[in-house]
């Protein structure tokens, strides 16, 4: 019986499974407020609180506000709030690791749906050259530095209150997320100060780039997401891991070909057991596309929960059907 369960999991139609999970999490995190659901403000996804009906809030929002408190307050009692905030964030994070991005982030789901629109029109997608990919991949750490350092500079009075929640002001999620409940009030430029003009203008430009970028490039924004960078710092503590058995890998490149994030290491690296990279969204498409038994596997508590299998690969690729047709 256990074998049969394992077999059916390994043969799962990941595409359909992921679509259903993403649809449900999108409804939960964008419209959860209508059902009086509130999961707190330490979520490891872009559940934007500028959408008043969100079922929770992205952790970067309270983190910026907490770190922006006067230094003497931050080093005193408020420091406890920062620590408990990180602990609550970690509590959520360890259950799903970067699968929060691939399965639960409404902003990630939105990009996947924009990709579906592009596919519907038969327009080809864009990719970066490896050199550009590696350079762009560092931007998320710059954004993470903005999330942490600017509030700290506010705390020592080096920057004024105009810089409050700087990343939120330039984040396209602030502008786009409220749209789903019919709120377009964030589509405005704030003229109250020069800093506000610059930051909200950047926000509008990034929102425009988000639409165009996501249309031509899969998971365009995820490469720049500071939450993804924050995830990676703690990814080793999660109960979920993506592992690779290099000795079974033939470097066929199927995993790289299906990777929305263009992570080359997934195909090239045959030495590292832990193959989770900072850009990974743990969508598990690589595991589903791998034709070698157990070469890639997704582990929960170090137990293989979903493994690459030849049978699963053939089923998903429709090879089984072709074989059957030949036999009959």
């Amino acid at each position, binding site marked *: 019986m256990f074998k049969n369960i394992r077999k059916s999991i390994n043969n799962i139609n990941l595409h359909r499974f992921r679509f259903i999970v993403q649809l449900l999490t999108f409804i939960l995190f964008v419209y959860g407020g209508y059902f009086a659901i509130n999961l707190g403000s330490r979520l490891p996804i872009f559940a934007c609180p500028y959408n008043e009906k969100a079922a929770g809030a992205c952790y970067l929002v309270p983190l910026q506000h907490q770190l922006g408190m006067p230094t003497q307050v931050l080093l005193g009692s408020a420091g406890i709030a920062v620590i408990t905030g990180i602990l609550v964030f970690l509590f959520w994070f360890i259950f799903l690791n970067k699968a929060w991005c691939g399965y639960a982030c409404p902003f990630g789901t939105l990009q996947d749906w924009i990709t579906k629109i592009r596919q519907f029109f038969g327009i080809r997608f864009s990719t970066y050259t490896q050199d550009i990919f590696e350079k762009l991949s560092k931007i998320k750490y710059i954004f993470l530095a903005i999330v942490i350092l600017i509030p700290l500079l506010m705390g020592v009075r080096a920057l004024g209150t105009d810089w409050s929640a700087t990343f939120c002001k330039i984040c396209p999620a602030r502008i786009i997320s409220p749209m789903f409940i019919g709120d377009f009030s964030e589509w405005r*430029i*704030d*003229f*109250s*100060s020069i800093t506000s003009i610059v930051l*909200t203008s950047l926000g*509008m430009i990034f*929102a*425009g780039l988000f639409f*165009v970028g996501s249309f031509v490039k899969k998971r365009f924004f995820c490469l720049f997401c500071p939450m993804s960078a924050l995830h990676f710092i703690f990814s080793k503590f999660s109960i979920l891991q993506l592992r690779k058995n290099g000795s079974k890998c033939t470097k066929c490149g199927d995993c790289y070909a299906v990777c929305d994030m263009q992570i080359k290491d997934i195909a090239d690296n045959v030495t590292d057991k832990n193959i989770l990279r900072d850009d990974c969204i743990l969508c598990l498409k690589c595991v589903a596309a791998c034709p070698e038994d157990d070469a890639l596997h997704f582990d929960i508590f170090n137990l293989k929960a979903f493994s690459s299998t030849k049978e699963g690969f053939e089923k998903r690729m429709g090879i089984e059907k072709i074989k059957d047709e030949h036999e009959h």
Partner: protein
Amino acid sequence: MGEELKFKALFEEKPLINAKVTITLQTGWKREFITDEKGEFTFNLIRDYFPQNNKIDKRFKEEFIITLEHKKDNITYLLTYPLYYYLNDNDYMSYEYGLILIFLTLVISGVVIYRFRKNRTVTFKETRYV
């Protein structure tokens, strides 16, 4: 700011008709009202804070006071009620510029990607070996 406020004047638990009400903003601007047959009066809060461009304190507290005057049996009753309000965000936020900016971004980036893809297209050429 900009909102319509409605008040009801009561004296000895009964609506106070034709009573004089004065609204005084912090800059000294005043306006008088007379309560109607239900003892009610309404007014729109107006802007009372005029900072320099790009130096707007969004949390500036605009204060005002409502004074209600009533005379009965040679006694003048005076009621004061202080209140405060904040700037309406429409005063310093613009949809117009926001929409122009996002529209320009969409058009420019769309054209750049289109041109890039068009220029990159290489005509099919069969590889031949000799």
